[in-house]
């Protein structure tokens, strides 16, 4: 597991989780570099199509937070 290069796409709400991800940086927290963040205006924008599309592009996991 640890050798495998993971690809996690995360869709984060601009108003909360995206800001929290920024704050994690300001606080210099450290976490694995396998996440690619896509900023969305609100999780209300989240469409199942995006999740399917992410898997189609080879994502190992999709994380929606908002």
């Amino acid at each position, binding site marked *: 597991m640890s050798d495998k290069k993971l690809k996690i796409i995360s869709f984060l709400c601009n108003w909360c989780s995206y800001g929290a991800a920024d704050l994690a940086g300001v606080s210099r927290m*450290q976490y694995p*570099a396998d996440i690619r963040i896509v900023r969305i*205006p*609100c999780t209300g924008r989240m469409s199942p*199509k995006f999740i399917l*599309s*992410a898997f189609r*592009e080879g994502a190992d996991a999709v994380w929606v937070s908002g």
Partner: protein
Amino acid sequence: MDKCIACGLCAEKCPKKVDNEYDEALGKRKAIYVKYAQAVPLKYSIDAKNCIFLTMGKCGKCAEVCPTGAINYEDQQKDITLNVGSVIISSGCKPYDPGKHDVYGYTKSKNIVTSLEFERILSSAGPYEGHLVRPSDKKEPKKIAWLQCIGSRDNHLGANGYCSSVCCTYAVKEAMLAKEHSHDPLDTAIFYMDIRTHGKDYEHFYNRGKDESGIRFVKSKITNIVPDSETGLQLINYIDETGTRQEEAFDIVVLSVGLCIGEEAVQLADKMNISLDHYNFVTTNSFEPVKTSKPGVFICGAFEAPKDIPSSVIESSAAAGMAGINLMESRWTLTKTKEIPEEINITGEAPRIGVFVCRCGTNIAGVVDVPSVVEMAKKLPYVEYADENMFSCSQDTQDAITNIIKEKKLNRVVIAACTPKTHEGLFQETLTNAGINKYLFDMANIRNQCSWIHAKEPEKATQKAKDLVRMITAKVALHESLTEPTLEIDQSGLVIGGGVAGIMAAKTLANQGYHTHLIEKEAVLGGQANKLYQTWQGEDIQTHLAEMIKSIEEDKLIDIHLNTDITNVDGFVGNFETHINKNGTADTLKHGITIIATGASELKPETHLYGEDDRVITGLELDQKLIHHDETLKSTNTAVFIQCVGSRIPERPYCSKICCTQSIRNALKLKSINPEMNVFILYRDMRSFGLREDLYTEARTKGVQFIKFDFEKEFKVTVNKDQLQVLFSDTSLRRKMEIKSDLIVLASSIVPEKKNKLAAMYKIAQNADGFFMEAHAKLKPVDCATDGVFLCGLSHAPKPIDESISQAMAAATRAVTLLAKKKMNMDGTVAWVDQEKCSSCGVCVSICPFSAPSFTAEGRYEGKAEINPVLCKGCGLCVASCRSGALHLKGFDTHQIFAQISALDEFESSNGGQTADTPKTDKENEKDAATAAV
């Protein structure tokens, strides 16, 4: 300070560690620091008292490592003179220090903490990163106790007589959070005198804590804690509800410390010649709740009285409004208009993207291999230009970017740097200055969300930065110029409801220079205040009310519509049309904003023999008797007040907030009319919050008898041989009691109009209790979720007159911030409908929380959805919900997000390479179909 980019290198290298006061000294910080992670502006500063260079003349590490030369050891405190017309004091309060007169052993055990320290322990950004542990040995606690009223409601040395108003609710919150944080079941107990959850929805919260979270509430004032240094436990002795003596050991004891006024605030008040009360709170009167004794100086927040965040925020708007009225004449005299270059039309041009990768000193470049990111970016489709900057946000780089955009004829820009949350606006301005539309832009977050959090994995961080740049570049290629819809705002206001709140809101609007309509359904103004006797501070309400009514009747800017009913409402923020029926005549009022102040009324109880025996009256009816100097009160031998009639019951779970104080005040009045009278107040929790506690203390010393009755047990009012009797169970004596009385006063609850038709008309929500809901309890306490509609008074929640007045001022002030704009520029990233595709299903219309979609009323697309861009907040809920693919969100459209996802992998291996500016709907169709087939 302009040079600091908040990279944090200085703090990293600073050798001096100091107790972190933000973490209540539970953790450490450096001598160069930011107060807390979310600080605005995010700039580091030197703590001169602890800096080695400033105290001993050597070190200088921070200046050595600072990449921008922002360190200035010579910086001095400067005196600045500002010429102002109004002053607002909001200097707040400080927590009570339990160590000063240490009766609780606070300084003896690390596991006895204040509530603020406990907040830091719970915080994920706190000293233990949100891991709930005992400070002494970092073991996870099994039992935590909260002791209420530490330093409050206490007349002993060093403590304060008043109630701090906020501690009961925060203790419930902390106990609930602690339970959530704990891996194993955590036992929590709150030791209290009265639970005072009197704010809006706080009683629901208390019930949740008790019934759902299982917090134990023990009515017992704890005076002594015995720490055991061997086990780290704290022993507490108390008497439980059955009268048995108990000894319990807790891992952590939290002292719910009160709010008090610091010495600095007192000196400030002294300097400004503002009068303070005997507790050092700023004196105000109930009818001018934000005005100090000195003209032109206003007050808001906890320096006025202990209060919670919503009340403080409400008062801050009120104070700003009052200060604004003072400055009305000079409004707009100091504004400057910025010159904006004409926008270049890029329609039909192929994308020419510029990618600017920021090094941010070493913040990014120290981890991410910036040159390789630039090299990768150069090879991406449509990228005409890619380079790195030392600091993209510095003014000279901004100018350089502007020139490059012009020179290279760029029509899309990507900045790979920090975060759009703080810098999007700045870079958009750069685009505007270069003459291209500001929406032809996006950012790749390679600092906050990359280099900073993967500091030890430079290779992976570089790969991630490349991916993020590639993804956002693919998206930006599909960006288009967007226009920002503008909205003209009708320069008049409408206030609905002619009670105290409505009158005050209308007066504040008019004083700010706006024409205002005031609608009242009854034939007279004044609402519930017409029936009220005195405020808790003893001010005569009828005199003040008469003055208020007179002043708005004389105001030429206010049109008062009595006997008026609202029949229908059209329009939205800026352009409302309210149709009214005034004494049988129809009329239409046009207005830019609406303030709802429709009030609430007193419950007419169906219990306690009310309506059957005329010696049983409500609180308001007693007020009437007092206003009219009723002679029968003089000959009354015994009076019994019964609290919480209709409130805090399953049917009406909220607290009516004002009745405890009203009963105490009237009990005192009865005592003054007839000192021999036996006056009893039967209560569940006495909620004389804040400075009202003084009144409670006075009533006890003057012989008013307060008895806590058991709510779970039988409570009856009967008549025996024409003698009124109250039967109940006393919680302290734990036995049945009976009082023979001549007068029974029911502290009856405040009830809102449950199915208020205005809710549907102005699209405002009511909570389960029937009170109108604000957009956000703390951040927007007087705004409705619907733009341009504001709330005040009893229709929002039960509250005393001074709070209704400050809320009315606040609502009017918030409304003025809209009106004063005259024109509103809305965001360009809004939804739009491809009406050819719309199937008229109505999902968007029903799902939108802002009422932006509607059905087109006429024309070729009659019945199809359309979006009012002015109301749209760009959340995309409708877009994601549209079954026909007819809805699109500018700036975050489906094909744009798809492009971003598709660019996840290296360009060669993905199916990227989409061409932009070709007809997008076709492209998107293919994408949609392909995805649907997955």
